[in-house]
């Protein structure tokens, strides 16, 4: 009871944990999934007054953009808007709108430099939706907005005519290390600028991954190199001519989503790992807690039930004691009346069983091959049975006796259909045969209940039959308290009681084959099982039994078969056959 209670608790915990775990995971993924950002990059970092510069606006989204709206703010003092935007707003504001549909959207703005100093362009606001989906019914789903994770900005310095270009001042140490110096022309033109250096993007996580490929591909990039605003020194007086090169449109397309996907993928994996560990840890603690508090309530209830059942059983037993004699007489009557029937239930006709025994007995393939090569494998024919014939009629209890290894068990196996004879044949309805050997077929790791169903199924009982007779089986075996226990904790007597109870359940066994069964168990159970066998015979069953106990055979059998060294020695009245057997045994000894 306690054990199953614990298991139940564990199961509930596991189911909830699994639920929580999956929900947690889905949420994590969802939160991760809906990012979008707007980057803004300029074609050059500085220029002379009057130059036209290009500024690229790139919208990146995780799953492709739907409708979007981006508002840019530019510095009207230093920049003059030339073209590229969808709508021009007041106070240096520009607006892009669109229906989306692509993974990445790139727009190019043109500005003309004017005045003196640094002019900046930044994204003031952005609203990006996921692609709009329309279902079968033509209903358009509500657009879902992305989380905007980055709004870019950039700036361009306007150079005065007398200014000298200084290439040697690095922005920071890191970039200085692996920088490649490039001589720049005095008059910087956007199309000619070649700058190879580390790339810094708005998302710090992708910096390292993208670097190598960027560097390699910069040269064949588009018409302009772009500079991110983030790299630009905050101090306007610091002269910077070297700057970071932002990948052009082509790069942005190919690299960024992949990096994103990968980091997202690893995150997911670690979340899974973590969640699994948490689940296991929690379950372990729960199991420990549950183990300390076994369910008391149910045990009590069960005790009561058990007592009632025991009481009933006792009453039944008393009733039975009175009837025993009657039953015995009746069954004998039945036997005699049935003997007149001409057709035997089991007809063993000239049965010969031949075993091939290899003399070498190789223990494996290697041994086998070696012995085969040496020519050591010679088969020895062993006759377990030689031309045995006998008939068993309905209602008879036939005992089979013989010394060890004389073929008793072999004939039982042949009758039950497990073995096929080499020669001769056996006429018997195999579906009616129940073979009962000691303690076999039980799975020690399973509980008594599970074994009843497993064994019952194997010997041919249907599920409904087992359901109907389960109580009967348990009561007969007197194992009410132990059905939920594992069979490995049973005593050998309990196991054989249960085996007997299953094999004789209901009226199932028409032909019962008992291999050394009736001589085990305590006196009371022996009497009980004998009584049960007689009940079955009364109901028209036939019994074939093997025993080494002469007393059992003489007391119970109506006929006795003596098999010695595979040969049939004698058939007849149990007493006569047993006497002959005893004499033979003494003679041999």
């Amino acid at each position: 009871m306690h054990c199953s209670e614990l298991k139940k608790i564990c199961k509930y915990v596991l189911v909830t944990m699994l639920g929580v775990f999956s929900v947690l995971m889905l949420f994590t993924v969802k939160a991760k999934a809906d990012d979008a950002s707007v980057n803004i990059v300029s074609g050059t970092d500085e220029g002379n007054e009057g130059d036209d510069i290009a500024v690229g606006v790139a919208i990146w989204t995780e799953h492709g953009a739907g409708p979007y709206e981006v508002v840019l703010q530019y510095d009207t003092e230093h920049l003059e808007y030339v073209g590229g935007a969808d709508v021009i707003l007041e106070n240096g504001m520009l607006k892009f709108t669109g229906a989306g549909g692509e993974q990445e959207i790139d727009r190019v703005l043109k500005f003309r430099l004017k005045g003196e100093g640094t002019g900046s362009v930044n994204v003031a606001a952005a609203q990006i939706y996921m692609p709009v989906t329309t279902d079968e019914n033509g209903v358009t789903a509500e657009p879902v907005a992305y989380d905007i994770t980055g709004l870019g900005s950039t700036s361009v310095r306007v150079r005065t005519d007398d200014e000298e270009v200084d290439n040697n001042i690095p922005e920071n140490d890191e970039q200085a290390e692996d920088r490649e110096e490039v001589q720049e022309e005095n008059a910087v033109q956007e199309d000619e600028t070649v700058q190879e250096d580390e790339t810094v993007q708005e998302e710090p996580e992708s910096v390292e991954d993208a670097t190598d490929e960027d560097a390699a591909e910069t040269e064949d990039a588009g018409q302009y190199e772009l500079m991110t605003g983030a790299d630009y020194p905050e101090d306007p007086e610091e002269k910077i001519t070297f700057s970071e090169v932002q990948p052009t449109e082509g790069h942005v397309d190919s690299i960024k989503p992949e990096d994103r996907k990968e980091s997202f993928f690893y995150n997911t994996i670690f979340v899974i790992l973590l969640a699994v560990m948490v689940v296991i840890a929690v379950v372990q603690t729960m199991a420990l807690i549950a183990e300390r508090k076994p369910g008391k309530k149910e045990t009590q209830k069960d005790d009561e039930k058990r007592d009632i059942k025991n009481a009933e059983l006792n009453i039944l037993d008393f009733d039975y004691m009175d009837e025993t004699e009657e039953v015995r007489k009746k069954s004998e009557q039945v036997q005699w009346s049935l003997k007149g029937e001409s057709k035997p239930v089991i007809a063993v006709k000239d049965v010969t069983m031949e075993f091939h025994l290899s003399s070498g007995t190789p223990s494996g393939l290697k041994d086998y091959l070696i012995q085969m090569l040496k020519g050591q494998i010679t088969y020895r024919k062993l006759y377990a049975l030689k031309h045995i014939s006998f008939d068993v009629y309905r209602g008879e209890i036939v005992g089979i006796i013989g010394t060890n290894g004389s073929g008793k068990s072999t004939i039982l196996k042949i009758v039950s259909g497990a073995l096929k004879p080499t020669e001769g044949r056996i006429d018997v309805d195999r579906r009616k045969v129940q073979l009962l050997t000691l303690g076999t077929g039980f799975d020690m790791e399973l509980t008594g209940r599970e074994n009843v169903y497993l064994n019952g199924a194997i010997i041919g009982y249907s599920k409904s039959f087992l359901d109907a007779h389960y109580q009967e089986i348990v009561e007969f075996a007197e194992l009410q308290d132990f059905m939920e226990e594992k069979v490995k904790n049973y005593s050998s007597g309990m196991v054989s009681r249960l085996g007997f109870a299953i094999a004789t359940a209901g009226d199932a066994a028409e032909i019962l084959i008992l291999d050394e069964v009736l001589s085990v168990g305590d006196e009371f159970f022996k009497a009980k099982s004998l009584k049960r066998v007689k009940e079955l015979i009364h109901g028209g069953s036939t019994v074939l039994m093997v025993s080494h106990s002469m007393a059992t055979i003489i007391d119970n059998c109506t006929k006795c078969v003596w098999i010695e060294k595979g040969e049939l020695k004698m058939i007849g009245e149990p007493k006569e056959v047993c006497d002959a057997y005893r004499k033979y045994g003494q003679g041999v000894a």
Partner: protein
Amino acid sequence: MKNIDRKASAFQYFFVIRELTSREIKRKYARSSLGILWSVLNPLLTMVVMSLIFSTMFRHSIENFPIYYLTGQIFWTLFSTATNSSMTALVDNKSLLIKAKLPKQTFVLSRVYTALVNFGYTSIAYVLMLAVFRVKLHPSAFLVLVDILFAMAIATGVGYALSVEYVFFADIKYLYGVFLTLLMYFSAIFYPVTRLSEGMQKIIAYNPVYLTIQFARQCVMYGEVPDAQTWIRLILWSAGSLIAGWLMFKKRENKVMQII
């Protein structure tokens, strides 16, 4: 007079298989506190491990590595556990064999069925991962059920043969273990087939386990219906394996009982 419905033998057959299967599963997880849940967790964890190692290695040739691997893994497990456990089916059930009224094949079938039940639990993990990685399913995904039948048929045939052979030569267990390793590396579970040489690709296209895996990937991951060649090969493998296994089993069935 007798109240057992003996005519419903098909029901009985299935009842026995179910009882045997529930025993196998109970035994397998008898001492673990997570029990059958390991059938779900195990493939997930191996997926994580394999993805950590191989997903970067094959990121250009395999689109969705975790799912690619998991598809291969669960079909591989179905085949390997079904055949491996079928091998010992007869020897393990010695005492029940003598009593059994049903054909001895039942014991082999119950082992294959156990592997299928395990596969069912593993599928929970699989479906979960399909959702997590947002794999779009097409109607062709239903073909995976046919694929499972193919895999079962092949495994059953092999299981029949192995179970009988194991009675005579216990060494087959170790030989088959080595063979399974070979077969696993020939099944393209965690690498793309295109990485192999032309000749190897031709050989691997005859591997029944690889065929079932590829079949599943095509219809679940890529939403394609496998081509006629794959179908023909799988049908031939299934039928051939079942018939050959059955014949081997029948031929030595009686001898098995003498030895056991």
